[in-house]
Every structure is written in C-alpha cells, then in structure tokens.
C-alpha cells in the first residue's frame, strides 16, 4: 500500500492531536481543585467562638479525608460536605481572643475528579462573646441591642424594626439572628412576622410574613438550615391569637410547613437537641413534654405539670426541667433530669434539709454538661428567685445570689462556662423594669450590662 501526501498529512495531524490529548490530560491532572472562598476570611478578627470553618470550592465535592480540616490550637470536630462547600463543625466553642491556624489538608476531591493538591492555610482571631437583649423603649418599638460582656461600652442597637421586637434566636454558628416583629406599630392586629439579619445587624429582611397569624419563638436546627417556630392563627383582626402549633421554616427558600400532619396537635416552647435528632416541646394536649425523634419518627412523653421549656444536655443525653412533686404532706417544684431515649427520671434538686419546700425553675446546663444553673426560692413564698448551682448529679448545691428583693431568671452560660448571663428584677422598686446582668462564677462578681433590658442571650 502506498502512502500518499494526504495520508501523511492525516497521520501527522492525528499524531499531533494524540500528543495534544496526552499533554492536556497530563497538565489537567496537575490542575488542582480551586478554592472560591473561606469562612472566617483570612485575617478576620473578632470572629465568633461558635463559628464553623467553611471552604467553598469551584466544584461540587465528592469526598474529603476525615482529617480534612485541622485547627491549631487543636479542637476536635466533625467534617461534612454540602454541595461545593467543606464544613468543619468544632465540637466545642473556640477560645475567645485566640489566634487560630486553619489547615485544609490536601486530598479534598471534587466530583469532576480534581483534588486539592496543596494544603490551604490561613489564620483568624476569635473575639469575646457579646450579649444580645431586647431593650424596652416607651417612646418607640422595642429593639434588639448588643453589648460587650464587660458592661463598659454602651449597647448598640441592631434591629431597625418598625414595630416591637418580641423575641429572637441566634443561629448555631452565630452568623445570623432570627427575630419576631409585630406586623404593625399599633400591635392591635396581634400578627407577627419572622425576620432575619446578619449578626452585625446588616441585611435585615423579612423571612416569613404572617398576615393572619402570630409567628414567634423561632428555634434553629443545629445545621442552621431550618427554624421551628410557634404559629398562632388569628381568625379575625383584633381577635386574640389562637392555640400555638409548631411549624418548620426553611431559611434559604422561605418554605414553611406544619411539623405534624395532624393540625390539631398543639405545641409550644420548642427546643432541638444539640445533635439535631430530637425536637422537644410542651404539649398541652398530653400534659407533658413530648420528645419527637426527627430521624425515625418515634416519640417519648415526659409527664410534666409545669409546662415550661426544657434545657438540653450539651451531648443530647438528657433534658432538665422543672416539675411539681407532691408527697403526703408536702409539695414543691424541683429540677428533674430525664435520660434520652430511655425516659428515666431523676430528681436532682431538693431543699437543703432534703424536703420538698423549694420552688426551682429555669435549669440551664453548663457547656461541659457537668453543672446546672437554676433559679430557686422557698416554696409558697413571695421572695425573689435566686441563682443557684449544682452538679449534674444533684450534689454540691450552692447559691450564687442571696438578695430576696431581687428576682433572678433566664440563665445562660457563657461558651467557656465561666460566666452566667441572667435577667434580674427588683421586687421592691415601684416602677422597676428588668435588667440584664452577668455574674462571674468563680468570684461572684456581678456586672450590669443594660437597663432596662429583657430576654438576654449570648452572641458567642
């Protein structure tokens, strides 16, 4: 067979193309997975101690090594992939005022086969947790404020709501705040909408309009994707809100659906376990606390006569709640712990004499789960409730405050477990309003953060 000039040209072109294909494959294999952005950004300061480490890549991710993200100083955590983003969730809050080195190790692989060839490193610095609260304002609507935990700087207004802010909830990574705002200034209609803002007060926008209902008490799921909230229908303008029912709200899409198919099921004071597996709520119908397993749909009813919110153990092992306990000649309100999922109940708090003549409330687990803060007063007395501490097994019960004229409530541990945030109210003062305070657990030193102020919460 003779080779013509044309054949030579064709084979030359094909050889050239084959070479180019080989070169492209070789060079292409050296092109790594490109990073689009990091959170917290490199060099960021005053970063929340609750922050997640997020790295967005150019492609949808396929896999990542178990040790894809490491922090220095070391802190353990879990890594997961969400679309094109690698997320590291620290198991514990970060240490305040600390410089962290982040290393995203090589080996993260995209769906297109590209991998991160070289480790990605950057630094950020955490700040001190701050304190959020609602500040009543007789001249205008109540607004959401933020203040430093040392109480030295005047509070800064965050929300710019046209009507009163009712309540709020900080996202698990502290990046956003969901809050409830009355629909109009007069508050006559009783309807309330859900709003969302960034933690620095920027980008305030309505998350869910509820023109015929009061939507309030939002609670975040641990992954920060959804909220569960209470919805009370208002059948006629000006009529009182109806019974509360729990609804889900998808934060990104705004889609909202009832938690339960049965529209007659009532629920309030919802809380979600830190591991995201359980939804607890007060069920007036069942006269107790219902625990609903979000993974398998199973349920657990904890009989409870008080009907107040529960506090979840940081490891989702148990809940603490206040309940009325009666004996033959005595009765009181004590703190009990209920193990999950067994439902075994342990009475934790008793009076110093071992009796039931106490009225305990507002239990709050410490971040390490070893202690509980709670409010206590003598049963059937008019004194102010005091702040107490006890170990998780109900021992080592000690008071942190001792002024019967002051009522203490709404206890929140700081992320490092050294400080308690609470609300106090002077019973002796005629026109007193609530204020927000902190107490150093080691020294007992108290600091006023804001007055008047209600509903305190940490912005870690």
């Amino acid at each position, binding site marked *: 067979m003779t080779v013509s000039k044309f054949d030579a040209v064709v084979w030359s072109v*094909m050889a050239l193309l084959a070479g180019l294909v080989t070169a492209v494959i070789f060079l292409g294999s050296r092109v790594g997975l490109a990073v689009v952005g990091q959170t917290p950004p490199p060099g960021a300061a005053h970063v929340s101690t609750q922050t997640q480490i997020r790295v967005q890549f150019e492609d949808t991710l396929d896999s990542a090594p178990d040790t894809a993200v490491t922090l220095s100083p070391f802190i353990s955590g879990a890594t997961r992939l969400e679309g094109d983003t690698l997320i590291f969730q620290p198991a514990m809050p970060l240490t305040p005022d600390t410089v962290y080195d982040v290393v995203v190790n090589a080996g993260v692989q995209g769906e297109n086969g590209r991998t991160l060839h070289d480790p990605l490193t950057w630094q950020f610095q955490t700040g001190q947790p701050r304190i959020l609260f609602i500040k009543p304002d007789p001249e205008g609507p109540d607004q959401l404020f933020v203040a430093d935990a040392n109480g030295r700087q005047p509070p800064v207004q965050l929300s710019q709501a046209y009507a009163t802010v009712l309540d709020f909830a900080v996202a698990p990574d502290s990046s956003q705040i969901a809050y409830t705002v009355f629909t109009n200034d007069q508050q006559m209609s009783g309807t309330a909408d859900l709003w969302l803002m960034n933690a620095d007060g920027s980008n305030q926008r309505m998350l869910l309009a509820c023109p015929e209902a009061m939507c309030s008490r939002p609670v975040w799921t641990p992954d920060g994707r959804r909220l569960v909230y209470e919805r009370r229908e208002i059948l006629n303008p000006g009529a009182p809100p109806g019974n509360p029912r729990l609804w889900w709200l998808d934060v990104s899409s705004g889609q909202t659906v009832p938690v339960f198919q049965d529209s007659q099921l009532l629920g309030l004071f919802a809380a979600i376990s830190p591991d995201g597996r359980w939804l607890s709520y007060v069920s007036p119908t069942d006269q107790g606390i219902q625990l609903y397993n979000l993974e398998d749909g199973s349920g657990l009813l904890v009989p409870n006569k008080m009907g107040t919110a529960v506090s979840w153990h940081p490891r989702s092992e148990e809940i603490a709640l206040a309940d009325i306990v009666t004996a033959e000649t005595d009765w009181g309100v004590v703190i009990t712990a209920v193990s999950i999922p067994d439902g075994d109940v342990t009475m934790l708090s008793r009076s110093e004499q071992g009796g039931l003549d106490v009225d305990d409330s507002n239990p709050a687990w410490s971040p390490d789960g070893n202690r509980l803060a709670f409010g206590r007063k003598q049963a059937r007395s008019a004194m102010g409730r005091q702040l107490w501490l006890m170990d998780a097994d109900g021992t080592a019960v000690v008071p942190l405050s001792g002024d019967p004229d002051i009522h203490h409530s709404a206890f929140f541990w700081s992320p490092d477990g050294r400080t308690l945030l609470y609300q106090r109210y002077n019973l002796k003062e005629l026109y007193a309003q609530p204020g927000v305070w902190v107490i150093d657990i080691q020294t007992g030193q108290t600091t006023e953060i804001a007055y008047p102020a209600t509903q305190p919460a940490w912005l870690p």
Partner: protein
Amino acid sequence: METTELEQQPEEVAGHTTVPAPEKRFQNAIRLVVGVLVLLILISALPGLNLRFAGDRLQTFTTIFLGIFIEAVPFLLAGSLVSGFIAVFVDQNTIARYVPRRAVPAAFTGALMGFAFPVCECGVVPVTRRLYQKGLPLPVGIAFLLSAPVINPVVLVSTYAAFGFGPVLIGRYVLTFIIAFLVGLVFHFAKPAEVLRPPEETGIGLPDSYHAPEAAAKGEKRAWTAVVTAADDFLDMARYLIIGSMLAAGMQTFVSQALLLQFGGAPVLSVVAMMALAFVLSICSTVDAFLALSFAGTFTTGSILSFLVFGPMVDIKSAMMFLGVFRRRIVLYLILLPLLFTLLFALIINLFLT
C-alpha cells in the same frame, strides 16, 4: 492553482450513467451482520442456552433497530430528494462559480452550508455525495458533511429548547464549526480520486433514459427525473443505513451502557464514555439534545458537549453510510479526526475551563 481530479474530468463524472450496484457485496454484508447477531444472541443465552432469554434479546434488538431505522428514514428520504434535485437542477458551472476553492474559504463555507441545506446526519450523506458528483471541492464537502447535522436551523432550535442560551448551545456550535473547518482543511491535501469511491462502485448517476438537453426543454420531465434519481439514491443509501442501524442496535443490545454511565464525574473518562455512547446510540441530531439534557446533572460539561458534537458527525449508522461515498481508509479518517479533535476540546473544557 492546483485543480482537483473532479474538475479535470467533470464531463466524465457528470456524464456517467447508472452502473449496476454491487448487490452481491451488500448481500454478503447483510448476511455477515445477521450471522454475527444470531451468534451473539445465542452466546448471550448461555449458559444452558436459555432460548427464552435469547428471544428477549432478539426482541430488544428488533425494537432498537426499528427505532433507529424509522427515526432516520424520513431524514434520509429528505436528503435523497435534495440530492435528486441537485442532480437535475444544479449544474457544475453554478458550483464552480459560487463555491470557493481555496482551502480556508472552502472549509469555512462548507462548515456553514448547513443553513442552506438543513439536513441531519442521515440526509447529509446523499446530498454530499451528489454535490461531489457536481464538482464540489473536497474541503467544502467534508466540512459540510461534518457540520450540517448540527449547524442548521432545526438543531439550533432543539438545542435551545433543551439547554437554553448558554455554554452548551454556544459550545456545541462553536466546537462543531471549528472541528468541521479543521477537518475540511486537512482534506484540502487530498485528491478526489483517493477519497471518493469511483462512480462505477457507487452506482451514482442519472437514469439511462435521461438526456439533459432534451429534458431541459421539459420542466415536468426534469422534476420526474429528479424524483427517480432521489429514489435511486434513497435505495442505495438505505442499504448502508440498514447495516448501520443493525450494528447500532446490536451494540446497544449486547454492550452494557451502565458501564459507560458510571464515569459521569470523571473529567477524562466521562468524555470517552459520552463519545462512545454517542457513537453507539446513533441518535438523530435533531433530538439528541433532549437525551443529553438527561445527563446534564451527572456528567461533566465537556462530556455533554462531546456527545452533542461528535455524535452528529460520526456514529455507527452514518459511518456505514460514509462507505457509500468514501473509500474505507477515508471513512476511518472521518471517524478518527473528529474523534481526536472532539476529545481534545472536551478535555480542555473539563480540565481547564470549568
């Protein structure tokens, strides 16, 4: 200026009359394909020669074959009609006057000729064959052959309907044009005699009864002659379509496509898999965008484009139909050149641009 062989002997080619078609060769080919298929069906029924299973396979094969063949026949018929009318109504002087002969303009023109002759990959073969008979320069015909199945209004609309205006639509048209243009340029170095099958083998021509000067006086007679010529072209090319459709159906029946589909996210293998799929499926270019859309979520952009660019240029049935126009060696070139160009561009897209 160098002239092609066709230009030097136009009368010889144009004046050629019908030559008996190589029926025996066609019958042998059919026998071979059918024999291989029967063998495959029986082997696939092993162990134990499960005849019911073999029957199922045969039914699957028949269904796929009919699907491909029935889908392609109308387009082949349309192409044959165009071919018949070109044979009668287009003279060589017109082509010589309007079609450029220098390499770059020729390949450029050929790559855009689909908008003048909107045909898919089945119809484009008889049209190209007829245009070559009328003296069309090689680069123009090759570029037209490869680009027309995509660069035409019908496929433009169907691709837009499936993917909207975006990277897939733009990429499909740009890559098809570039590849057709480059392959057309390569064929500028060829002589028609070493590329095209001689007329006595293909049987292409006008009916014996047709005499141009006399027919020219009677328009009615010319139209009838065009239809008769189209029928001859149709029957001639349909043989190759039948064999190609049988091969494609056989491949789809006996080669697991799930094997190809598992490489969706791999930048290199996804391209290879989608090109193989396009070659095997032999789906018409007017509807292939809708099939590609179903892969869009799981396959890489480069691989989707390779499916949409390479498939219309070359698949099993069109490769068989090429045998009715080109020498076997050239058919191999017409498969390998678009394959390598498409592979190169799709890999660049996957590895560097997305």
